[in-house]
């Protein structure tokens, strides 16, 4: 061992054991090395650096996003967009000129209009109109902006979900969370900056591309917190390896890697050492975060959570805990909103009601909880799916169950917090909810608006790939001014 190595060893040992036990920070570690070696390094970035907070394009109030992705296409006409005319003309053939030349996923022939089987009422001071299937949302409706005039270009699940997440219908582009963390990093150095959690039936139709990093470095892909087993893949040590044993092996690795760096001089080695230290910290921070059992009873009551049981409600509570810790972008998927009425189990009478029971309480609790903690101002909550549903009954194969086909021309979402104007309903559809009549909001507009609230100018958030500057909003996107507080 050279003198330099010995010295290095002494310093690192002192740092590790002099500081609070095992919890040495990545910053302390990196300071051991010549900071000049940490200059911009193309194509290879150490995690702490890739996710380090970066200044936005302009100051912003919104710091974090929780995106509740309701995969499958929630029926806006049975939840948010009340259409008395549909009820009135229930069972009448759909006017032909409305659907001439239209393509549907499943509907064949001339379908019949379908009035909502659910009642609507007005709630809150804002008087927003909601279906009775959403009793919890109705209580916080004054904190929420409802958008009834979204439209998309895709009417099949996988492409539409990928489009909603990446701004392009073919898998392979960076997702919204990847763009945001690429743009402004994340506040917490011990946790991934972009976390994804799943509930409901299966993974979403669009698969892992929905939270992929596309051509951005893979640092920015969503890290899945899983419902069973390790919350993060490979987080637990193998059986028989205690945290102390692991710490010792990491000390050995650090020593050997540092010695090797002294020999070959490559700064990449320092970033690998940093990654191992961060991994160790995640082994403590993630289980601590994922353990909701110590939350008080009133919080469990509020969200409808049961510790240890995988559910959308648990994910909502975890989302709040993540945001509290400065994680930038949290996305929850709840798959199952596809309600064609092809069977008893996937109609707008029974299944839709069940989905609302599974999600309404926790979604509303999340907003209320963020508010009571003073986090709502800096956290945007987005609720919505990849498209809407038709005003007509699908009646697939002559099915008598009530259901609606996919509809890309008009659907609803809601947003709250993070600079979103509370207590408003934006946009209007025509009498039967087929087309948008007022204030259309395209998917790229939604993206542009969300980025804007995070202090990012969507046209400037670009990445050069294959000779082109790509962006989340492709070549479109307008900030929706009416949504801004």
């Amino acid at each position, binding site marked *: 061992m050279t003198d330099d190595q010995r010295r290095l060893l002494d310093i690192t040992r002192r740092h590790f054991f002099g500081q609070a036990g095992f919890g040495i920070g990545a910053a302390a570690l990196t300071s051991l090395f010549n900071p000049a070696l940490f200059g911009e390094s*193309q194509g290879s970035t150490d995690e702490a650096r890739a996710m380090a907070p970066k200044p936005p394009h302009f100051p912003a109030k919104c710091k974090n996003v929780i995106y509740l992705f309701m995969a499958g296409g929630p029926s806006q006409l049975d939840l948010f967009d009340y259409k008395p005319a549909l009820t009135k003309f229930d069972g009448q053939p759909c006017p032909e000129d409305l659907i001439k030349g239209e*393509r549907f996923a499943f509907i064949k022939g001339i379908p019949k209009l379908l009035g909502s089987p659910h009642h609507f009422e007005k709630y809150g001071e804002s008087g927003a109109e909601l279906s009775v299937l959403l009793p919890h949302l109705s209580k916080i409706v004054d904190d929420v902006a409802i958008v009834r005039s979204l439209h998309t270009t895709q009417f099949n699940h996988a492409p539409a979900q990928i489009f909603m997440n990446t701004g392009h219908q073919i898998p392979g582009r960076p997702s919204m969370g990847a763009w945001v963390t690429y743009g402004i990093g994340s506040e917490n150095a011990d946790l991934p900056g972009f976390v994804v959690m799943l509930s409901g039936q299966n993974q979403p139709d669009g698969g892992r591309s929905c939270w992929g990093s596309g051509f951005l470095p893979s640092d920015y892909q969503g890290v899945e917190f899983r419902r069973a*087993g390790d919350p993060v*893949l490979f987080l637990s040590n193998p059986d028989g390896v205690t945290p102390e044993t692991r710490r010792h092996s990491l000390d050995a690795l650090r020593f050997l890697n540092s010695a090797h760096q002294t020999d*070959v001089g490559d700064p990449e080695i320092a970033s690998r050492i940093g990654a*191992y230290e961060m991994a160790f910290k995640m082994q403590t921070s993630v289980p601590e975060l994922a353990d909701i059992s110590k939350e008080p009873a009133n919080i469990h009551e509020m969200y409808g959570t049961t510790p240890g049981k995988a559910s959308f409600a648990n994910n909502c509570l975890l989302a709040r805990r993540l945001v509290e810790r400065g994680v930038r972008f949290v996305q929850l998927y709840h798959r199952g909103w596809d309600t064609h009425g092809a069977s008893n189990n996937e109609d707008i009478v029974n299944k839709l009601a*069940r989905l609302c029971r599974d999600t309404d309480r926790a979604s509303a609790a999340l907003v209320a909880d963020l508010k009571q903690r003073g986090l709502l101002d800096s956290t945007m909550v987005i609720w919505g799916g990849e498209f809407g549903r038709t005003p007509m009954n699908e009646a697939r194969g002559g099915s008598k169950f009530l259901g609606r086909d996919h509809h890309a021309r008009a659907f609803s979402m809601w947003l709250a917090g993070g600079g979103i104007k509370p207590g408003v309903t934006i946009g209007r559809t025509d009498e039967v909810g087929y087309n948008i009549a007022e204030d259309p909001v395209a998917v790229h507009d939604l993206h542009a608006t969300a980025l804007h609230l995070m202090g990012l100018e969507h046209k400037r958030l670009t990445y050069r790939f294959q000779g*082109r500057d790509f962006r989340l909003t492709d070549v479109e996107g307008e900030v929706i001014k009416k949504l801004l507080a």
Partner: protein
Amino acid sequence: MRQTPVVIEALAVMGLLFAGACPAAAQQPSFDTQILPIFQESCASCHSASRPQAQLRLDSAEGVLKGGKSGPAIVPGNSGASLLYQKIASADAKLRMPPAGAGLRAEQIALIAAWIDSVSRQTAGATRVDYAHNIEPILRASCYGCHSGTQPKSQLRLDIKSTAMRGGIGGAVIVPGSSEKSRLIQRVEGRGGEPRMPFNGTPLAPEQIATLKRWIDEGAEWPESAEARDQAPPKHWAYVKPVKPTPPTVKHAALVRNPIDNFLLARIEQEGLSYSSEASKEKLARRVFLDLTGLPPAPAELDAFLADARPDAYERLVDKLLASQHFGERWARPWLDLARYADSNGYEKDDRRDVWKYRDWVINALNSDMPFDEFTLDQIAGDMLPNATEQQNIATGFHRNTQFNEEGGVDRDESYFEVQVDRVATTGTVWLGSTLGCAQCHNHKFDPFTQRDFYSMMAFFNNVDKRPEENGETPIYIEPVLDMPTPAQKAHREKLDARMKELAEQTQTMTPELKAEQAAWEKSVLDAERRWRPIIPEKMTAAAGTTLTADAQGLIIAGGEMPRNEAYTIECKLPVRAAKGIRLEALPNPKLPRGGPGRDPYGNFNITQIKIEVSDGSGWKPVAVKKLAADTGARSLEQKRGHIWMVDASREDQRLPRQLVLVPEKPIATREARITLVQESEFSCQSVGYFRLSATDDKDPVTVVNVSHSLRALIGKSGRTEDQEKKVSDYFLTVASSLQSARDELKQAKEEKKKLDITSALVMRERPTFDRPYDFIRIRGGFSAKADKVYANVPAILPPLSEDIMPNRLGLARWLVSKDNPLTARVAVNRIWEQYFGHGIVETSEDFGTQGQRPSHPELLDWLAVEFMDRGWSMKAIDRLIVTSTAYRQSSTVTPESQAKDQYNRLLARGPRFRMEAEMVRDTVLAASGLLSSKIGGPSVFPPQPPGIWDMPYNDDVYVESQGEDRYRRGIYTFARRSAPYPTMINFDGPSREQCTVRRTHTNTPLQALNLLNDEASWEAARAMAGRLAKEGGADARSRIDYGYRVATGRHAKPGEMDYLAKYEAEQQEHFNAHPEEAKKVSGDAVTAAWTMVANVLLNLDETITKE
């Protein structure tokens, strides 16, 4: 020849001019293709972006024009007066530029002089607006959206001279000589009461309008040849055929092993640097093992090399490795990324596909050093070659690797269009290094590719065989599949097919004997019905408030409250002495919703539990039920999926009487009974609405439900119609007991056939045709927005298809590898280079267009490209050249000096050092542990993966971990599921194979650390390695540690490392001795547990997973 009136209004636009947007007339040298290369070759090492000498930059047009510390470098029109010329032409060697060496060649100096003089001529004539440069871009950006193509708005088409001059519905819009009279100007200015053009679009900028006005006032000159700018393309360096340059001379000629070194070293020496010293033998061996086979050297292989003292020992090693069967496995990896190879279809369902034969084809082709032209031909159009072999057909799997959306409700044509778009874009990326994909929706913004080019390329793929098919609800296009049974499988399948045919016939043919058997069976069904006695309720209660009313026949109807969940309890005296069956009939009733038997809004019902209890006066006792049967509906004895009987009556033809029979374990002898029907559905009220209970003492109580209700109505009836007769006999044949053995055998044969598991491959097949394939331009890239018909053709900017090439898919393949194609060879050698050095000579290896990086060593790239073709497109020849160069053999140690001068090692004054790719990480870890299987090829395998990764909608495919050898195969064989990729692959920057990927990124993340530390696959490797160290590593700890270093990193441990690890191992042993329960979990005793920890550390070393 077209005239080139050029305007130079300010220096700012000269950049555009010089960047080659305008092809210079023959006597005017082109700055871009003729002058700039000279500057790059000879001047840019000092006069370039970073700290240019004398503040003069000669790496761009702007720099040349701006000049340096001594003032302007050129005087336009007067080469003699230009400082630049004086410097390069100086007779005084001390003053002459470039400073060292012989200076520029005479013809180069003459060319530069001619160019300086021509700048003047261009400037002098530069008073007019040029259509191609100034006007067409405006029209393109703002007008073509509506006013181009075959159906332009208002019949005004502005992309063709004749139509633009003729005008549209409203007459002429351009009046040459008078912008005032031209409606084009009125409309873009929004004058004259009509809406401003572009309609609903961004108005033109005032200076754009001014330019348009000037152009019209100057006569609206529109050269015939410039109808679309595409026909007057610039010649970007990459579109000029490479010419083999002479390797430059270098100062340290002794360092040159082959011409690669001439090019690299000449440049390095310009920087005042030199090559680094040669890497140690062991490091070099490991590097070349990894590069050529993807595997680290085994200690014995390493020793053999170290012991080989012959001067050409290294070259011998290289030849041995190039001949290794593992070469193909290593090099197939980057190719499979390009081919977007995966074992599943992608998108929602992401079903499996059988394509591994293609992967093996790639491995074999690379192993046999198939020339790259042949390699291309086979993959693009192997099926069209004369007497195409099975292997050549398999090779066409390249373009069958596209994703395929099977989601219900996709549009067949749209989905197929996306497949075709991918084929064009991928072909462009892989062979042409060009982003053709951009031209799907519009003419390429930066590169000279038009939408027409894009769809002309697509036309090559438009004669591929495909047939429409209904796949469940989804109409899709099916492309050909090659069925490849082994001879044994084929024979077996034929035998099974023959037997199945016999059996099918036997079980479907009525005979007189069967007729008699049927009559007896029908009677038994009828008899069974007669032996049921209705239960008359004595007391009825409903827990949640439903009203129950019974009539004299025991028929019960529910009414009143509609609670979500309910439980009916009926107390009665059983009507038979020893009840062998209890029956529940559910009957349609017009009083219930939709006239069904149930109470939910559709008329359905759901029973989640039925309890039978009896009482002999001492309290209720449950009766055990052994069997449950119903004539319809989903049912199960153990409340599966939350119900025991659920009936769908939503359709009219489903609203029929239904029966469910419960068979008690023992006949019920007690008459006093109570029966409870529970409904705990999660939906709204789903209780049964109209029903009856009954009991029987028949010994075979389920006979009654063996036939459906609709069939029951026909049983035993006389005068049945032919159809009805057939319906009954068809059903009978499925239950006839005399046919049971035949039915069993048939079922078994079907299963056996399935188990044959015959391999297939996805292939392309051309439809027979004499026509040139065609397709349609799609407006804005929308699949259904068809515009002009275009015939298969290659991009206009590139050399045309030669006369002897058929304009079809095979022709495209031949054209791609024709020696006139300026791109293919460059793009291919650049990718090979990238694998060795971490970055290509063109760093953007996926983009050789104007937006890509310029080559760091243009002459070297051209030399390699021509050499590649001259050597018969042998990829191994290029590999050999690279790995035997001095450049490659350098040590990769980073010095502060080299770090400061060349942080990214673009000059290659040191050897390459970077983290391995995902597959290589896996292979190295497994090889070090001794677990790695050396088996080559075969179906994809399933190494350990955490549960829950596979979770595809509408697809319950289960990940079953491979056992035995297949658990430890090389990474390239891991099953690639697009929507749920293998985590280790993704963590280490592997792509999901959804799209063609040229370059992988190299990140360092904590997820990688967790993966290598804790993943079961890594941990199994650590355990195995501990065993290996004990077995092969000698007796004492120090020699084992040394051996561990050798298998993991290829070198011996240094004393410091040895000391540290020996102490670590001792501490671990001490720890595990004190905690035997932990040791047991880790791997048994304290010693192996301690060594497992040591192995885990060694396998996680930076050096282990780095090629250095």
